[in-house]
């Protein structure tokens, strides 16, 4: 029914992302006790190997006199690589209006670039200061299902001191965040949104995914669904 493709590696994923200037995104929350079941479900749906996720995310904001409007940029440091690799990401405004209301995923401007390790020093020198930082720890699947979709499941951790990654503690113990994103362009975003939306339906028994900042809480029947997945390794249709 859907074409399943396997991405060779994360490098190819970034190559695709850099040519797109938008993304479709949905988010949800899941209790940590059900994450293993979600992983089994995702493994069966995606048909690719899961990848570990350990990303230090630094959100920088422009100082008070810089720019006609204040601006934000995110630096992402992938700590799971032998040598940490950096990405800079700019998230713009989400689509609004009646057209956007009819789409169940958020469509927003987004541009990413790989960047060398001096990026934080550079942005500091340009007048950007650290606003907040997080450590996301979990796993992700990157696969193709009409669109190039990424699903990540991670605990979000805060640091008691600046850059103290080793001392990070969960923001919401017992809960993890599920992010589903797909790069898009002004030409194909509705097709990508439909692909993401369609995929999310398969995850509905365990996690309800919606536009970010519009939380719908956990799925009340997740426990039963998880039990079913764990008992037969995901072979039973939900």
């Amino acid at each position, binding site marked *: 029914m859907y074409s399943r493709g396997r991405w060779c590696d994360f490098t190819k994923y970034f190559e695709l992302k850099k040519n797109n200037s938008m993304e479709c995104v949905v988010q949800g929350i899941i209790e940590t006790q059900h994450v293993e079941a979600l992983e089994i479900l995702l493994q069966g749906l995606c048909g690719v190997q899961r990848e570990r996720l350990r990303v230090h995310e630094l959100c920088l904001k422009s*100082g008070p006199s*810089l*720019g006609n409007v204040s601006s934000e940029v995110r630096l992402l440091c992938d700590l799971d690589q032998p040598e940490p690799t950096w990405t800079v990401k700019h998230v*713009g405004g989400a689509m609004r209006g009646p057209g956007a209301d009819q789409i169940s995923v958020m469509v927003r401007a987004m541009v990413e*670039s790989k960047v060398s390790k*001096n990026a934080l020093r550079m942005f500091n020198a340009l007048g950007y200061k650290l606003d907040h930082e997080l450590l996301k720890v979990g796993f992700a699947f990157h696969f193709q299902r009409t669109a190039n979709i990424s699903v990540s499941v991670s605990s979000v951790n805060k640091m008691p001191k600046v850059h103290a990654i080793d001392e990070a503690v969960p923001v919401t113990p017992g809960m993890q965040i599920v992010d589903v994103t797909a790069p898009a362009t002004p030409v194909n975003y509705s097709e990508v949104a439909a692909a993401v939306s369609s995929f999310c339906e398969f995850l509905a028994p365990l996690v309800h995914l919606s536009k970010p900042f519009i939380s719908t809480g956990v799925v009340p029947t997740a426990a039963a669904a998880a039990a079913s997945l764990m008992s037969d390794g995901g072979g039973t249709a939900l």
Partner: protein
Amino acid sequence: MPVKWVLHWQPNQGSTVSSQILNEATQCVESINGVKEGRWKATLNYYKPLLRDQTNQAEFPRDFLGISLADQPNKYYFIIRSQRIVVEADSSIQLIMERLQSYKSKVALYFEGFQYQLGDFRLRVGKVVPTHSENVRGIVMEVEYLPISSMEKSRKVMEEFLEIWHEALSKRSLPGKFVNIDLNFGEFGLGDNYTPQHTAVRYALVMAHMIATVQAVRG
């Protein structure tokens, strides 16, 4: 990647740079059996902060520049020379800078000319022009030694090549010379193994010297 030196034309006191000098330099390369391979182009942007309050200007770097290199079409390089910062990014970083609306490119320059193969060397000679003008502001020359990527190991052979080059060029009695500027790449966090970031830093230094030369002439 191969080691590269970036030289710039330093006119004698009282003389200026012109297309004629570029033509002479190009002919000189051909006279020592350089084989023309095609054109090359690099682009440099000087960024200025957009400030709500101009009195705070001193807080922000005055030498923030970005460069795209002929060898690396999918990359973009930022340099803040005064703070010894060099960053390599994907070309999409330019779109990010546009969307941040905190810095704007105020001056853009092209480096463009011809590329030559000369034994184990690749040479690029080019003029420096503003993007909307044909007014030659400078001349640069890239000298790349293809077999070696260690800067220390290549130093001697590069110096020997430059002696040959200076001798060939001196027969044309031009009012100036090509100059190579040595710098401490370690201050930028760069090592002995040559990378495009080294080239970006070299170009930033060449621009600083060219500007200083112009200001000295005007002074």
